């Protein structure tokens, strides 16, 4: 990037509109901005940073987080005072060229001074990027702040912004042999080369991987595998059982068929045909009798329910006789209730009309006698019912006993018959078994087959039960596995994330190591080169090269390879610093940035100063020297003129309270206030 000019409007001390043209024509690429301390030299640099990046402060301001956010007040305070209560804008416009194209970036920010003197500045700034065509016409090409930032980033890496401006103090600091400063160098290098970004990216990836791993182990329990295995086992088991069932039923068919065959064979055999036939007959008979006996059993049960009647038959009869006797005697209560008759006595009148008063003693006596005779305790109106029941039972009992007897006899008879049949059957079976060798074997075989058949049937029942159980278990597990599969697919997705993250991490680490080493080597190399150009011969006698170790610490080595940073002079250290800084910019930004230096001449020896003035314009594309009157004296001015690189000089002149004016001077005519530093 080549800077053309900077235009300031009400920016910091620079009231109203003021412009600086930067020297661009090679070899005259040095611009000097000369002014006493506090005039605003840094202000020019601030304007640049504000314009390019919207920065409201510089790192050297060393503001804390909150203050950093607020930033410094950028609007000229005099202008604010003149317009109390009204918003005033500070604006910086910068024209630059990059890769043959000319651009202009304009940024502004508003502030307001309240009546109490407090200043309120807006948070953000407005920005516009314009392009100038060959005819000199400038048109806006972008107003989106983010896009503009991205474009600028490409031209000029913002990481470098801390390094554009070097002051003598800083240069000095870089090589002082203290821990903090070494650390600063290290940080600077890492920042400049994006190494810290790489390290953060790597750390982030490691964290990411660890998080994913935690999630994976949280979700994966190996349960799915276990369930899947069990389901597979169950499938195999069920299949095996079903096969066995299939085989079993075939075998069963075969057995039945064989048994049937044998039976036929046995029947066909002339010797035993009859016996076998008889045996079958007897078997059938025995079966029929058993059916009959079962029926009998049921009938018996019916009679058992009436068993009490049987057992108590005599007693029933006796009670019946007793009650019958009483009835005969008239002692059983008539249909008239006892209470009714007693009522009659009380009311002293009979239903027929006869008086029953105490003067009719005879009638009363009659009734009392009646009551005594007919109403025996225990013999109530239900006694007649009881008598009736007993009578019925009695007559039923006569038949009952006989029937009962019959049943028992029949049952016994049947039992005997069945026994007889069974012994006959056994006899025949034995005979059949003994007679005729071929029959003997057949019958044995049939017996065995029948036994086998029974066993097989039992086995198949068991298998059927097992199949059902296994199928049910499988159903349940399948439901479970669906749930687990869902979980597993989540795990799989996590695993592929982890793999990608790990691969990226590996790649980044490789690159980082390679890059870090390459950058380090390059830095050391460039630093040494720069040093060779800047240092005087005396220094070069002591110092051979600049080195950067694995911790990014700067050091110088003498010709024997020994470290010498602690032993060189202040001026030499400054040269070392400068060499290193230049190397940083070269490696990180290719030195296509305007270099702002805040007079580094302070501690340099004459030769070193001359070398500096001579070398830097050749190395950097533009060099802007910010010089105070104490450090840029006639001596320096003269030396600079000798280089023929001096293109521009601006003097910062105090105009009033809080305002500075930028005044262009003639390079050839300009006379610094002082003759020399000393």
């Amino acid at each position, binding site marked *: 990037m080549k800077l053309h000019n900077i235009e300031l409007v009400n920016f910091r001390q620079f009231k109203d509109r003021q412009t600086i043209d930067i020297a661009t024509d090679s070899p005259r690429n040095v611009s000097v901005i000369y002014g006493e301390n506090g005039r605003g030299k840094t202000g020019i640099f601030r304007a640049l940073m504000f314009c390019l990046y919207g920065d409201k402060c510089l790192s050297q301001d060393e503001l804390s987080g909150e203050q950093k956010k607020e930033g410094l007040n950028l609007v000229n305070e005099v202008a604010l005072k003149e317009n109390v209560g009204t918003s005033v804008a500070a604006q910086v416009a910068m024209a630059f060229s990059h890769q043959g194209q000319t651009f202009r970036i304009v940024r502004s920010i508003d502030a307001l001074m309240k009546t109490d003197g407090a200043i309120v500045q807006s948070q953000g700034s407005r920005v516009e990027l314009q392009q100038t065509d060959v005819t000199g016409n400038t048109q806006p090409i972008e107003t989106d702040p983010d896009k503009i930032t991205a474009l600028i980033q490409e031209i000029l890496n913002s990481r470098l912004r801390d390094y554009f401006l070097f002051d003598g103090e800083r240069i000095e600091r870089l090589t002082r042999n203290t821990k903090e400063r070494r650390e600063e160098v290290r940080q600077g290098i890492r*920042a400049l080369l994006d190494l810290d970004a*790489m390290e953060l*990216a790597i750390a982030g990836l490691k964290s990411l991987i660890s998080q994913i791993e935690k999630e994976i182990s949280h979700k994966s329990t190996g349960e799915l595998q276990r369930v899947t295995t069990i389901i597979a086992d169950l499938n195999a088991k069920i299949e095996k059982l079903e096969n066995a069932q299939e085989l079993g039923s075939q075998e069963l068919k075969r057995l039945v068929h064989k048994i049937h065959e044998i039976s036929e064979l046995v029947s066909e055999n002339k010797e035993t045909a009859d016996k076998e036939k008889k045996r079958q007959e007897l078997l059938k008979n025995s079966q029929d009798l058993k059916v009959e006996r079962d029926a009998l059993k049921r009938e018996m049960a019916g009679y058992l329910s009436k068993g009490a009647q049987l057992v108590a038959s005599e007693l029933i009869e006796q009670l019946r006789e007793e009650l019958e006797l009483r009835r005969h005697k008239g002692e059983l209560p008539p249909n008239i209730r006892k209470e009714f008759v007693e009522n009659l006595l009380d009311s002293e009148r009979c239903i027929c009309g006869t008086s029953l008063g105490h003067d009719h003693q005879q009638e009363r006596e009659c009734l009392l006698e009646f009551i005594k005779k007919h109403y025996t305790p225990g013999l109530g109106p239900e006694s007649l019912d009881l008598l009736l029941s007993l009578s019925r039972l009695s007559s039923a009992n006569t038949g009952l006993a006989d029937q009962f007897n019959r049943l028992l006899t029949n049952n016994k008879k049947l039992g005997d018959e069945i026994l007889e049949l069974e012994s006959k059957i056994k006899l025949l079976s034995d005979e059949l078994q003994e007679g005729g060798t071929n029959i003997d074997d057949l019958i044995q075989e049939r017996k065995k087959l029948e036994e086998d058949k029974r066993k097989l049937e039992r086995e198949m029942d068991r298998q059927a039960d097992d199949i059902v159980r296994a199928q049910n278990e499988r159903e349940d597990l399948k439901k479970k596995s669906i749930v687990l599969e869902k979980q597993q697919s989540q795990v799989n997705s996590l695993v592929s994330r982890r793999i*990608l993250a790990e691969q990226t991490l590996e790649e980044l680490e490789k690159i980082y190591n390679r890059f870090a080493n390459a950058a380090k080597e*390059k830095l050391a190399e460039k630093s040494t080169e720069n040093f060779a150009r800047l240092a005087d011969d005396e220094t070069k006698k002591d110092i051979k090269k600049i080195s950067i170790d694995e911790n990014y610490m700067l050091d110088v080595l003498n010709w024997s390879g020994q470290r010498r940073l602690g032993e060189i002079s202040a001026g030499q250290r400054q040269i070392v610093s400068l060499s290193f800084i230049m190397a940083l910019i070269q490696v990180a930004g290719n030195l296509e940035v305007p270099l702002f230096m805040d007079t580094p001449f302070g501690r340099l020896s004459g030769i070193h100063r001359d070398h500096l003035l001579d070398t830097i314009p050749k190395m950097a594309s533009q060099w802007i020297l910010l010089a105070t009157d104490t450090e840029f004296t006639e001596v320096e001015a003269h030396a600079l003129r000798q280089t023929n690189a001096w293109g521009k000089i601006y003097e910062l002149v105090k105009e009033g309270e809080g305002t500075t004016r930028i005044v262009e001077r003639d390079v050839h005519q300009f006379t610094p206030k002082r003759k020399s530093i000393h």
Partner: protein
Amino acid sequence: MSDKVSIDSILGQINDPAIRIMAEHSLKTARKALDMSDYSRKQFVVEELHKILPRALKVRADNETA
């Protein structure tokens, strides 16, 4: 010959597209994160990486089926 050593160009040369997406995004995010406070940096990077994973994985999957 350019003295400039650029990580971006190196990352751009990674063969595997999915890894390249991840690597470039992680560096971009890390640069942004450096402007943040120390303790929220890493978290920011990790969160951004979580977000970019699905896209990178999709690129990987598309490449595999192709």
